[in-house]
């Protein structure tokens, strides 16, 4: 393997990892943008999506539906997982965050952390401690650029996540609800005065963000081939780092941040001692927060927000 293909391969690896991080980071950035709360449970919502995906897929596989209607299967798997997690997101918002909207910041963070621990252990008890195999429907066939290989599954996932990101950007910029979301994020009091239903807007945010996380969960399951109850934790940290890096609250920022975090991880492992990979991610996160708390594409962050 020559150097050129080596670098291309590592860039493909980074792009793939980055697009998954970006998709999860979008959920953080939306929720944070609108109520300024780290949704600690987001990682668990991502895992829940992966589990629902596996449940639907396993059921479809039993009936032999997968072979005959491959595209419909994919739509069903992604749709069901996203729908379920959207409902779960709204439920969590209603139970754990809404009553605390006016309470102290500490209380809200702790409630979010509590929800995260609760969900992850709930999934452990209901879905088992060991990892579950995802029915492998994507396969490992692919094509080569020089000596670098990329599978069709990877292409599919990268394209799908890009599509979802574009769709989200269009939704937020062009639809009425999206505009209401942006208004609420900027100034809640003002938005309320202008007749925007704040509760409804927050609910919608808590549907879309987690649904994107669920899509990422299904992608991870489909491509990597297994899910486990505690896999959300690592993705949560990385995706949150991505969201902050890009500038929390900004949708292009989250995508950029995801790509950068994915890139840092892959390229560090590729050229430097791999055992320090995670330390590097955390150091990057801390440095960004210290030097530029508003992130790369973030708007100004006032003293009270940081």
């Amino acid at each position: 393997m020559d150097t050129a293909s080596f670098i291309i391969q590592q860039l493909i690896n980074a792009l793939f990892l980055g697009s998954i991080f970006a998709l999860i980071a979008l959920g953080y950035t939306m929720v944070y943008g609108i109520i300024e709360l780290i949704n600690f449970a987001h990682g668990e919502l991502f895992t829940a999506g992966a589990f629902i995906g596996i449940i639907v897929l396993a059921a479809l596989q039993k009936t032999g539906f997968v072979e005959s209607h491959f595209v419909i299967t994919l739509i069903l798997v992604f749709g069901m997982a996203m729908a379920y997690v959207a409902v779960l997101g709204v439920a969590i918002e209603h139970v754990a965050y809404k009553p605390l909207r006016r309470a102290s910041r500490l209380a809200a963070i702790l409630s979010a952390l509590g929800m995260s621990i609760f969900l992850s252990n709930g999934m452990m008890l209901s879905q088992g401690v060991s990892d579950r195999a995802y029915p492998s429907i994507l396969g490992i066939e692919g094509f080569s650029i020089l000596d670098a290989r990329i599978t069709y599954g990877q292409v599919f996932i990268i394209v799908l996540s890009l599509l979802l990101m574009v769709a989200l950007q269009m939704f937020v910029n062009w639809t009425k609800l999206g505009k209401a979301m942006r208004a609420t994020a900027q100034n809640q009091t003002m938005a309320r005065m202008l007749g925007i239903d704040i509760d409804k807007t927050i609910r919608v945010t808590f549907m879309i963000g987690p649904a994107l996380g669920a899509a990422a969960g299904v992608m991870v399951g489909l491509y990597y081939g297994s899910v486990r109850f505690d896999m959300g934790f690592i993705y949560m940290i990385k995706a949150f780092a991505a969201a902050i890096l890009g500038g929390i609250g900004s949708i292009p920022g989250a995508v950029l941040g995801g790509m950068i975090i994915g890139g840092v991880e892959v390229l560090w492992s590729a050229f430097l001692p791999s055992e320090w990979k995670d330390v590097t991610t955390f150091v990057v996160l801390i440095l960004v927060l210290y030097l530029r708390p508003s992130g790369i594409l973030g708007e100004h962050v006032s003293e009270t927000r940081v």
Partner: protein
Amino acid sequence: MKRFGIFMLLLAFMLGFSSMAAAKTLKIGTLSPLTGPYAQDGTDILQGVKTAVAVFEKAGGIPGYDKIEVVPGDSACDGGKATMAANKLINSGVAGVVGAYCSSATIPASVPLNQANIVQITPASTHTDVTGRGFKQIFRMPPRDDVQAWSTVKFLEDGLKIKTLALIDDRQTYTVGLTENITEFAKEKNKIKIVALEHITPGDKDFTAVLTKLKRINPDVIYMGVYQPEGSLMVRQAKALGLKSKLLSEDAVFHPKFLEVGGKAAEGTYLTFAKAPETKERKEFEKTYKNMWKAKTVGSYGYYAYDAGMILLETIKKAGTKTNKMVDTLRNTTWSGVTGEIKFDYKGDRKLAHVIWIVKDGKFVPYWDPLTESYF
């Protein structure tokens, strides 16, 4: 004086109670992670010991005891919790303990057990420090890290006859023990050059960066010192990246789940694992275990735990519950179990070598024996 008085009172109570309730219950304890990420293996261990007790009781039990009770202890793979669990077992008056799983729990837990002079047989911990610290009453079922590393290097040198080797570990106690030992053994004869030592994070899903790095180096064999969840993902990604190197892994990956998740990509992977003798007892045990726990497969540590439970009970039957006698009996007897012949050396380690297995048609198949240097 006061303390003595209270103690006597408690003792009297305890004696009174015990003579009233179950006069002749033999208790043996287990230590394994029943909660947390390793709970699956921990449950396998508990179930293995319980199966041993059931089988033993069916065969007549131990004269002088009406009942054999298993007292479960949750070590949670954590030093603090493991000592608490060990103390709990000591207090409930167990005659012997099977456990624990993680070496990082077994080592701290063995201290109170040693002080209380209770026989401990670990069905899983392979770190060299578990035995050989001057503790006489600790025994170990699986081969030590260095024994497994020896088999691995022997296979690479004399079986595959390769030149270059790359190592991957996930920086946990077990896997680092293996890669360190392999590095040392490989240096001895200097037939194999270790060209890379890479590390991954347990819990990660994407190992393509490290695998691409190794693809470029292109070693003859890549050794995966990881646990099953990461190992299964790694073989898939290696296949997807088109790695030409052969993959070799160890007993922590030897699990039905590896075949399930790895699928076709797992084909051709070599693994080191204890020899599974095709005996009638083993088949019978598998049948009993599956019936008893409604399980599809027997977890790898279930076998060791069953054997540990069986020899513990046999020892008590032969020698009573006096620790010194038990230790002598355990040490001087050659047992036969479902994991083969069991004979402990002066440290409490078993003379058992791993053999090399290969994944073929979705099954683990024995492949090469390092002791005889021959194919199966």
